[in-house]
């Protein structure tokens, strides 16, 4: 995330989804996964600095593309937004689904959390229904080891029908294997034989009516969609997806009379089994969830039944009635205290260092016989102000942000949102705003970019606008500055050289 020169200004004009290939035969890989599974770590480890971020066209969702070389071939990784599902009830999900379905990627990699595999399999199964050129990357193995959870990758691979590898992206484990599997999946003539979730009998019968015809039609038109997936979507009949699907087909669905006739028969078949359209959606989701449960129970082993016991005990302290809020206030107080007092000594060091350098600069200007106004503008003006800002602001920021990131890595921040949500709800805001406000203490701009974690547009707008009322590190400065300048005198007006 972040605003790069390439993603703002004139460069932000929608130009459609452009995948910047370095060479024609570069392969495009879609990188999908639930939020917080380490997808970005995998992305960063594989692409290094060869990446650029921007927005998905027409949407305020970040898009990141990066490239890497493997065995002489170029690969472009497209980092999709983290989603729990491809059902498109939020912009992120819509973006992810549209890219996986219609983005023309050569393969998909789905990153999963080894400590929470069942939930992650929902997205995996939905993805392999769309494309069987997929690799499942079970990440966070170090976390799983800590909790004594073991994943049987071979069994998982058998149950899914697509390659599965284990990784701990943080420590670069498994990434070589991942690249190997990606290459295999892209190169092989036949895609892996994915084992797709089966639905209840009436639905399977309805699909049977549609798939043969669709298979033939799609093959004729050389469209690479799975007939089964298209049939499911036709039955599901979600308007947004239907429109996008139609755009990507070379023939009109509505005008294909044979198809419409079969569709009518299929719907009839479902109606006879007492499955109206909304009940159909329920069954489709349930079948995938149950299949995920089956696959996961067959491939994940917990050495301790109570593997989360320590986490739960910690949570009792962090979020319980009596200790929750006090602990939170204490932690925040400690962070602020560390930031403000800890920054004093480095600030003074920097300040005196820059003052010494200013002396040397002045000597240089004198030696070079530079005019007084030049010295005034450059040294007393530009240099002095710049160094004041740096010496006052850099130390607090250098302390605050790492401490905040530490809290984030420890997983404490969601507990803060959990504790405060009710209070924020009273103002029609969201508990997650507590997090963005904390970030705002470091830098308001960072706090505002962080507001993307809030789902509801209204709550997000409230968080963005009110973030301004949180004093950022820059606004800590004036009290600091006043205290500071007993040592270094602030600019006196009689210091200014008189104009020639």
């Amino acid at each position, binding site marked *: 995330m972040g605003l790069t020169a390439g993603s703002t200004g004139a460069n932000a004009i929608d130009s459609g989804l452009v995948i910047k290939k370095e060479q024609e035969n570069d392969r495009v890989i879609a990188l999908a996964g639930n939020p917080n599974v380490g997808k970005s770590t995998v992305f960063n480890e594989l692409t290094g600095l060869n990446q650029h971020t921007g927005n998905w066209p027409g949407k305020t969702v970040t898009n990141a593309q990066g490239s890497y070389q493997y065995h002489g071939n170029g690969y472009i990784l497209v980092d999709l937004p983290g989603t*729990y*599902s491809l*059902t498109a*009830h*939020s912009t992120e999900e819509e973006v992810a689904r549209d890219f996986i379905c219609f983005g023309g990627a050569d393969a998909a990699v789905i990153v999963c959390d080894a*400590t*929470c*595999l*069942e*939930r992650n399999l*929902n997205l995996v199964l939905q993805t392999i229904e769309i494309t069987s050129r997929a690799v499942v990357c079970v990440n966070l193995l170090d976390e799983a080891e800590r909790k004594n959870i073991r994943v049987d990758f071979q069994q998982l691979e058998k149950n899914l029908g697509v390659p599965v590898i284990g990784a701990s992206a943080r420590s670069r484990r498994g990434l070589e294997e991942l690249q190997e599997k990606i290459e295999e999946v892209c190169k092989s003539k036949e895609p892996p034989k994915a084992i797709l979730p089966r639905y209840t009998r009436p639905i399977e019968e309805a699909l049977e009516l549609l798939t043969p015809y669709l298979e033939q039609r799609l093959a004729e038109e050389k469209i690479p969609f799975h007939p089964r997936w298209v049939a499911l979507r036709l039955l599901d009949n979600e308007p947004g997806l239907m429109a996008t699907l139609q755009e990507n087909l070379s023939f009109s669905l509505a005008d294909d009379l044979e198809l419409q006739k079969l569709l009518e028969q299929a719907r009839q078949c479902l109606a006879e089994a007492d499955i109206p359209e909304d009940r159909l*959606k*329920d069954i489709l*989701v*349930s079948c995938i*969830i*149950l299949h*995920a*449960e089956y696959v996961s129970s067959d491939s994940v082993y917990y050495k301790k039944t109570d593997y*989360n016991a320590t986490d*739960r005990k910690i*949570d*009792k302290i962090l*979020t*319980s*009635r*009596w200790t*929750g*809020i006090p602990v939170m206030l204490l932690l925040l107080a400690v962070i602020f205290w560390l930031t403000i007092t800890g920054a004093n000594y480095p600030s003074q060091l920097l300040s005196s260092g820059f003052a010494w350098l200013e002396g040397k600069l002045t000597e240089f200007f004198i030696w070079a016989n530079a005019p007084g106004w030049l010295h005034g503008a450059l040294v007393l003006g530009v240099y002095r102000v710049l160094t004041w800002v740096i010496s006052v602001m850099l130390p607090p920021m250098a302390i605050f942000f790492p401490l905040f990131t530490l809290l984030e890595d420890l997983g404490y921040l*969601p507990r803060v949102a*959990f*504790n405060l*949500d*009710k*209070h924020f*709800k009273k103002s029609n805001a969201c*508990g997650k705003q507590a997090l963005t406000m904390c970030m705002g203490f470091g830098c308001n701009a960072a706090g505002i970019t962080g507001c993307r974690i809030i789902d509801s547009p209204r709550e997000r707008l409230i968080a963005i606008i009110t973030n301004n009322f949180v004093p950022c590190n820059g606004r800590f400065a004036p009290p600091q500055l006043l205290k500071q300048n007993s040592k270094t005198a602030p600019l006196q007006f009689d210091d200014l050289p008189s104009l020639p």
Partner: protein
Amino acid sequence: MNRSVSLNTLPEGSRARVTSLLSTGSMRRRLQDIGLIEGTNVQCLQKSPSGDPIAYLIRGAVIALRSEDSRNILVEGNYN
């Protein structure tokens, strides 16, 4: 035969099984996607200091739900 109650009335530490979802639209789909379908076992883990939201253990994941949403989830079999 246990009557169905709302998920948000479940006391801390107890378990139950989902009987039906009364929510509609995207919330319904959201809840289903995280695994809250009929027959799913849920455990109430922790209430927030202010009583809302409440953290539940759902298919291996700890998920916090606000009362306005969990009151539309019916469960049965309040047992420990």
